[in-house]
Each structure stands twice: as C-alpha cells, then as structure tokens.
C-alpha cells in the first residue's frame, strides 16, 4: 500500500525511509513518471504555470499593460514570440502575466469553495436531522439551476472584478461540492473510532475536525485537483459572455474571448496564443488530477 500512496509520501519525504530523503523523493517521482506518464506531464505543466506566474518579470522584458512595444497587430516574430495586439502590447508577455490571474482564480476559487464545502458536508453527515434535511434541499436547488446562469447572476450582483469572479465561482461550488464531502463523511461517522471518541466525551468540533476530516482527505484532494481546471475554463466562459475578469487585466479567458475574437480576421495569433495556453494548462491540470485520483482512490478510476 505504501508504494501505492506514492507522491503523497514523496512530498512528506517518507518518514521511515531507509534511503536518504532525496533518493526516496527521486524514487517515488520516477515511479510516478513511469506509472502515470500523463499525470507526470500534467505535473510538469502545473509547475510551468507556477514558474510563469512567479518569474514573469524575468521571463519577459515587457510589462503586461505596456503599449506600443512594437507595431500593433503584428504577427509572431523573434521580438514578439506571440505577436502584438491592437495596442502594440506583447501577447506573449500578457500570457505569461496571465498565468498569475489563472492561478489566482483557480487557487482562490478552490480554497474558497473547498473549505465551506467540506465543513458543511461534514456537519450534514455528523449531525444529520433537520439541518441536513433542509441543507440538502438547498443543494438540490443549486444543482437544478444551470451553472453558467447562476454564475452570471452572481457576478451581476457582486459587480465585475477579479476577486468577485473568484467569489462567484466559489459560492455555488461550496454548496454543491458539499454533497461529495457529505457522502465521504457519512462512511466515516459510523466507524468505531468516532464512536469511541464520542463516548470519551470529545466535543462535536473535535470529532469533526480531528476524527472525520483526516479520514476524508482523499476525496478532498481528488475534488481539488479535478476542480482546478474547471475554474479556469469557467472564467473563460464568463469572459466570453462579458462577465469575466475585466480588461485591461491579461486574463487568458478575456484575451481569448474579447480581443482575440474581435481581431481574429486580421490577427489570428491573438486568438490562437491564449487558446493554446489555456487548453494546455487545463489539459495538464486534468491529467494530473486524473493521476491523483487513480493513486488515491482506485475505485473511482477514470469515472466522471
């Protein structure tokens, strides 16, 4: 089993390793690459995304909003790897800085969704009764309304802006996402160790966070890794409908959906470059998420 858990232990450095920590990390990593080549590809893409976000000013000499870096609407060249846009801004630079927005949105929405979703899910599974009954009807309601419509309405209420987009993505996800955490918690609440904790007089808070939470980490990690790409895509869909991160911020969705589409006939690179960036990242993230799921929960392999 310990071999199956793989990278999780590699990250922690593997406590009982006979080999040195470095050798063990390398061993687990090379095994991950061999067993899950697609997942390893995903991990590389994810690292590249983080690298682009962190080292953006080193990677490119221009600023993301700097105009007239060259002729407007020019195609790819050595100075401008992905060409320029209608203001002469460097498209490659904007994509590199856009990684920050994509990361902000996906990490922000994931964190803001998974914490309430997990807490609510655990509470429903632990307390059951009227709270669970009523809350599950609310989840039903959220699930029955088409997702994009809900997003547009929430963004309209909150007003546009990068943080509001994150909030809009997180609110429905924190409600509907609680159902999976509830199901996972249900399996745990009946276990003997929970009963034992309760009979020893542990408080509800202690039981939920000390006994239930650690035992539902696998589904949480799976949801997180699979949801990541979804948020990036959802932001681009919102941009398409005019509800995404507002310009001039270099969000990939926005570059693709507004300027990219507007200048498609004269400067197709303005559409193609962000489309490739977005697709490669979402693809990589999904591949990584798939591999994580295979490792953490063999029962769910490839479903959904």
């Amino acid at each position, binding site marked *: 089993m310990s071999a199956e858990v793989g990278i999780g232990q590699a990250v922690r450095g593997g406590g009982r390793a006979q080999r040195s920590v470095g050798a063990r990390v390398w061993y687990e990593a090379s095994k991950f690459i061999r067993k899950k*080549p*697609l997942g390893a590809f995903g991990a590389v893409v994810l690292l590249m995304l983080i690298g682009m976000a962190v080292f953006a000013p080193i990677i490119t000499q221009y600023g993301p909003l700097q105009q007239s870096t060259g002729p407007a609407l020019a195609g790819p060249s050595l100075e401008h790897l992905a060409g320029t846009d209608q203001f002469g801004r460097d498209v490659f630079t904007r994509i590199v800085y856009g990684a920050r927005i994509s990361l902000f949105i996906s990490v922000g929405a994931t964190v803001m969704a998974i914490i309430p979703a997990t807490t609510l899910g655990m509470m429903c599974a632990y307390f059951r009764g009227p709270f669970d009954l009523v809350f599950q*009807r*609310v989840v*039903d*309601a959220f*699930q*029955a*309304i*088409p*997702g*994009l*419509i809900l997003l*547009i*309405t*929430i963004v*309209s*209420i909150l*007003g546009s802006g990068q943080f509001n987009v994150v909030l809009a993505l997180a609110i429905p996800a924190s409600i509907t996402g609680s159902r*999976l955490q509830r*199901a996972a918690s249900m399996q745990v609440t009946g276990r003997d160790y929970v009963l034992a904790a309760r009979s020893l007089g542990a408080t509800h808070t202690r039981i939920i966070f000390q006994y239930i939470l650690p035992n539902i980490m696998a589904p949480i990690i799976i949801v997180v890794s699979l949801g990541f*790409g979804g948020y990036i*895509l959802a932001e*681009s*869909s919102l941009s*398409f*409908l005019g509800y995404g991160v507002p310009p001039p911020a270099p969000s990939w*969705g926005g570059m*693709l*959906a507004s300027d990219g*589409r507007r200048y*498609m*006939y004269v400067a*197709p690179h303005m*559409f193609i470059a962000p*489309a490739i960036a*977005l*697709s*490669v990242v*979402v*693809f990589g993230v*999904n*591949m990584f998420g*798939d591999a994580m799921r295979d490792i953490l929960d063999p029962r*769910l*392999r*490839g*479903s*959904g």
Partner: protein
Amino acid sequence: MPAASVVYAGRRLITNGGVTGMAKYVLRRLIGMVPTWLIIMFMVVFMVRLIPGSIVDLLLQDQGGGGSYQAGIDRAQVEHRLGLDQPVYVQYVKYVAGVAQGNLGASLWDQQSVVSLIAQRVPVTAQVALVAIITSVFVSIPIGVISAVRRDSPVDYLLRSISILGISVPGFAIGTAIVIFPTLWWGVTVSFKYVSFAEDPIGHLKLIIPPAMVLGVQLSASVARLTRTMMLEVLQEDYIRTARAKGLQEPKIVVKHALKNALIPVVTVLGIQITNLLGGSVITETIFALPGLGRLMVSSIGARDYPVVQGIVVLTAIFVMCMNLAVDVSYGYLDPRARPA
C-alpha cells in the same frame, strides 16, 4: 458520483417491490421536490432583484429621452404599475401563487406572456440538445470501449488524452474557430441568419447540426471516461471469464457480454447530461446566433426582465429534477439484476 447514487436509488426502488412500490416511490420523490422548488423560486426572485440597476431605471432611461418626466413621481408610478413597490417577500408569495396556478407572468418590457416566449425558444434548444446527445453517443462509446480493451496501451493513452483535451478547450474557442477559420483560410462564408424548420428545413438543419456536434464532442469526453471505467469493471466479472472459457471470440465477448452491461450507468448518465446541455447551450447559441433558451436567459438578465428570468429558471429546474427522477427510475428497469426475482 451520479452513477453510484443511481445504482442505489434503483436497487432500493425495486426491492421495495412491484408497481405499487414504484408509484409510491415516484410520488414520494415528486412531493420531495416541492421544498426544493420553493427554494429555487425564492433564490431566483431575490437574486434577480439584487442585481444593481433595476428594470425601473432601464425603463425610465428607455422612455425619457428629453428628460420631460419628473424622476421621483414617474419612478413611483412605474414601480407601482409593475408591482415592484411591494416588499420582495410579498412579490415572492404572489409569484409562487401564480406559478401554482400555471401563470408565469409576462415580460416587463413588452407584456408578452413568459410561457409563449419560452415556448418559442424551446424547439431550438431541444434540437441542439438532441443532436448533441446523439453525437456524443457515437463518439464516446467506441472511444471508451477501445480504451478499456486496450488498457494502458499507447492507444488507451491517446484516446484518453483526446477525451480530456475535449474538456480542456473552452467550448466557445472551438465554436469560434469553426465559424471563423474556414472564412479566413478558404474564403468560405457561412451565413448564420436563422431560418425556422418550416421555412427551409435543410437550411435550418445546417444551422443546428454544426453547433450541436461541437457540443456533442465536448460532452463525449466525460461519457467516454465513464464507459471506460464501467468496461474495465465489467471485463473483470466472472461471466466474462465464463464466456472466454466457452471459447467465444473476443469481439463478441466485448460487445455482447461486456458492453451491454457496462452501458447501463452510461445511459443514465447521458440522461443527466441532457440537463447540463441546457446550461452549456448559452455559449453555443451565442456563437452560432441561434434563438434558443440560453440566449433568451442571458438577454433577460441583462434587461432585468424579472418574470422571464424567473420563468426560465423555474421551468429548467423542474425539467432537471424530473430528469433526475426519470434516470433513477429507469435504472431499475435497465438492470435486470436489480429486478425482483
């Protein structure tokens, strides 16, 4: 996980016994929908009114070109006429009462009844959804089966990569590329002027089929992955070993013995997908200029046409909930193992 809950609901339903058990189950589920439905109406009535810039502002802007009206007085009059001067909870109760009597109200802009507005738009969305589902079946099931049979081979990796790629590219990007690149590269101009089926059947289908196929290919990604999972599970069953031991040929085993059993949850998940299409259609309809439900929804949110937004959400929600019920019920029928002996 939809598949798991579906299995559970189906089994429980059948073990309750016979047709009366079924009728009771359906009735109980339908009654159970009422609170959810009240919550949905509550949400939508409150949420549309929370959007800044109310319909009253827009209407006054629309009318008062010369500023000949007295803002305060006119505003109160307009609000009163539209019934928006009442507290929101009163409007909610009135709306629920109206819906209970089958009255979804009328557009605040042109007084057209919401039911007829929606009825005009449903056929387009329904056709797109139908073609998308059919496309998805023809794309996803072969991919899923081949992927499972050739598990962990290069073919499997390739097919899985393609299906994940399908959900990694934004739908509007594929749609836009289909609309624009042929013009750009080959000078082919595609007309997107909408014609109804009655006017020009072939022209109509030409408009419906490409966007529907784009949606279908996107849908097929998740269905292909589910098919693969189910096939992998079924191929490990004893009856497959028996079939092999009998000396049946592998293609026959895969198609007749394995696929038939693996498809049950896939079919039910396809049912659930139809409901997702209602949301996904917004973007497709916008790109391909199709007058469907999704576009009506987005434009109504923009125009703050509260009754229309409410009407679409309420009807979509009913459809989604009934679809889920139908999926749960059908599972019992589709899986012989779940039937009583």
